[in-house]
């Protein structure tokens, strides 16, 4: 299957290992991965802060570029950015032409874990990792894309992993994009509940499907000199520790 990687801004600029890991895992499952270097932001920061006309510019650009790829599927290591692509149609309520193109692109755009489990039918990608691992449900993946069992199946498929369910795994980490910039004190207060649960879980790694939440979590863990590693699911699935 020919897959076009939608890598997302955060991964591109701040956590590239997530992108390379995703490519590795996809290739391992037999996919041909293509990457269009013209790709940019999907427009979510603009859309979520109310700048709809700017978001529209970026959405159109996204649609044009990913239509060009001629791929069977567009895959992204982010539930949040994937959800944004699924929201594109809202930007074109009065524009049938673009709305149809937006809907067609959304149909082919999959979040990484959902693509592996629901499209490829894979839950063992041949990864291995030693230790206890837990999972944080990133909000948009969970509530906009209904991802719940997919990442858990994949984690449980990793050899050497003992999966631990995180209490309140579905509670927000406090990131919320520009929310964490606008209201940093509230954001950190929310985050501290998450960090406390992670520490209590006694795990080697906390995983999630969004680099954004993971940066929020990792930032706090690092400053608290925690031994827990924040890892993207793609990184865990690319691991080979045996």
């Amino acid at each position, binding site marked *: 299957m020919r897959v076009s*990687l939608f*890598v997302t*801004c955060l*991964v*591109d*600029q701040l956590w*590239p290992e997530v*992108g*390379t890991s995703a*490519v*590795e895992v996809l*290739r*391992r499952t037999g996919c041909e*991965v293509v*990457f269009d*270097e*013209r*790709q*940019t*932001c999907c*427009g979510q*920061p*603009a*859309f*979520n*802060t*109310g*700048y*709809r*006309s*700017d*978001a529209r*510019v*970026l959405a159109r*650009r996204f649609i044009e570029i990913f239509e060009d790829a001629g791929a069977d599927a567009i895959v992204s290591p982010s539930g949040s950015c994937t959800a944004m692509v699924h929201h594109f149609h809202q930007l074109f309520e009065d524009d049938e032409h673009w709305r149809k193109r937006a809907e067609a692109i959304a149909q082919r755009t999959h979040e990484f874990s959902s693509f592996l489990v629901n499209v490829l039918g894979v839950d063992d990608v041949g990864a291995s990792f030693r230790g206890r691992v837990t999972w944080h449900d990133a*909000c*948009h993946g*969970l*509530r*906009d894309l209904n991802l719940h069992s997919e990442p858990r199946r994949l984690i449980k498929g990793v050899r050497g992993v003992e999966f631990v369910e995180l209490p309140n795994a*579905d*509670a*927000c980490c*406090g*990131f*919320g*994009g*520009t*929310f*964490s910039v*606008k*209201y940093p*004190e*509230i*954001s950190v*207060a*929310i985050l501290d*509940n998450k960090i406390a649960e992670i520490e209590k879980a006694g795990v080697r790694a906390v995983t999630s499907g969004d680099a954004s939440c993971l940066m929020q979590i990792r930032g706090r863990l690092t400053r608290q000199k925690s031994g827990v590693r924040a890892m993207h699911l793609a990184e865990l699935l690319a691991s080979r520790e045996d």
Partner: protein
Amino acid sequence: MDHLTSETFDQNARDALRDPQLRGALRNLANTIGDRRKFAITTVDDWEALREQARAIKDQVLSHLDEYVEAFAVNAERAGATVHWAHDAAGACEIVIRLLRERSATQVVKSKSMATEEIHLNAALEAEGLSPIETDLGEWIIQLARETPSHIVVPAIHKSKKQIAELFVEKLGIELSDDVAVLTRAARRVLRQRFVEAQVGISGVNFGVAETGTILILENEGNVRLTTSLPRTHIALMGIEKVIPRLVDLDVFLKLLPRSGTGQRLTAYQSLITGVKRSATDEGPEEVHIILMDNGRSRMLAHPVTRQSLACIRCGACLNACPVYQQVGGHAYGSVYPGPIGAVITPQLIGIGKAAQLPFASSLCGACREVCPVKIDIPELLLHLRAEVVEGTGSGTADQKGPVKRKLMERIAFEAKVDGAYRLPSLRVRVVQSSSV
């Protein structure tokens, strides 16, 4: 006390985060009511189907609101009630004041009602020299403390038992006690006397049934039953969106509201009131006045996105589920309605210029949408209002930080359009060079 405003949400929130007593109380709320709700919704066969049904009923009403409200008014009057129409908060207050004056009422009891909070009825009555007594325990505590509710269902949730005990020592002259039963008994003793003396009782309305003109009010303390039956005159304030078509629709809403609001299968009391008492030997008031209030609701009705705000049944579940509310509590919002639904309704009620921060006071996690018994897409509404703040599509004044951010967003969009410059060159190298399988 000085009441906070929505305009200073950021500062209010910072102050709230530094209040350990408040944060303890809020943790309690999320753990108790939140968990009780989770269990309660498993006690009906198909919660999702009920939510769908409830929303469909609300959508049906909202698409023909004028007809349903009219039918409700006709049938309520047929049953002997008097219906009044209030365009806004001031109008509604005026009607209440006039009704009290005409009856030379000096003793007025009130049951808990967010609609009366919305129009600041108590302040309006006090300005006229009338002192209505709140009879819901939580509301009465707030009234004694000269505060405002911090939650739409549990108004005194921000106060500790100790604070309430000290308040009762000061205001009621009782001995200090940490026994809830003792405190409640003290409140009951004072309030029972007020009920006996009251000439008029003022209540809100949970649902107004169009086909019968019946109003339904839910509660747990019995104070609504007393407020609406003991005094000779009952005045009910009702937002026009509270109308539902048929009595059988209550079957759906009575399953949803107590479970969502307090995690109960049913509240202790359900008062169904249809007009006045029929004969002299019947119990109940001689006069029932229902004030149908718009106060910005028809404006919300106008747009298909904002219309769903009117489906709200004021259960408070979104407050309990919201990570932001859980941290900062209700007062920080500086509005009558706090939490996610408050962040949606307030800008529409008081003007977006005065509440421009509220739609941004959310991480957009969607927990509110997940628990809402009438499936209001609160994140969608927040995004809609954010666009209104930024792009000025509504009546609002722009966000203060607007111009700077505007430039940033334009820049991102522009550079992306030109040649994808908003991207570091590093990744393509990494991806292309990465793993060969």
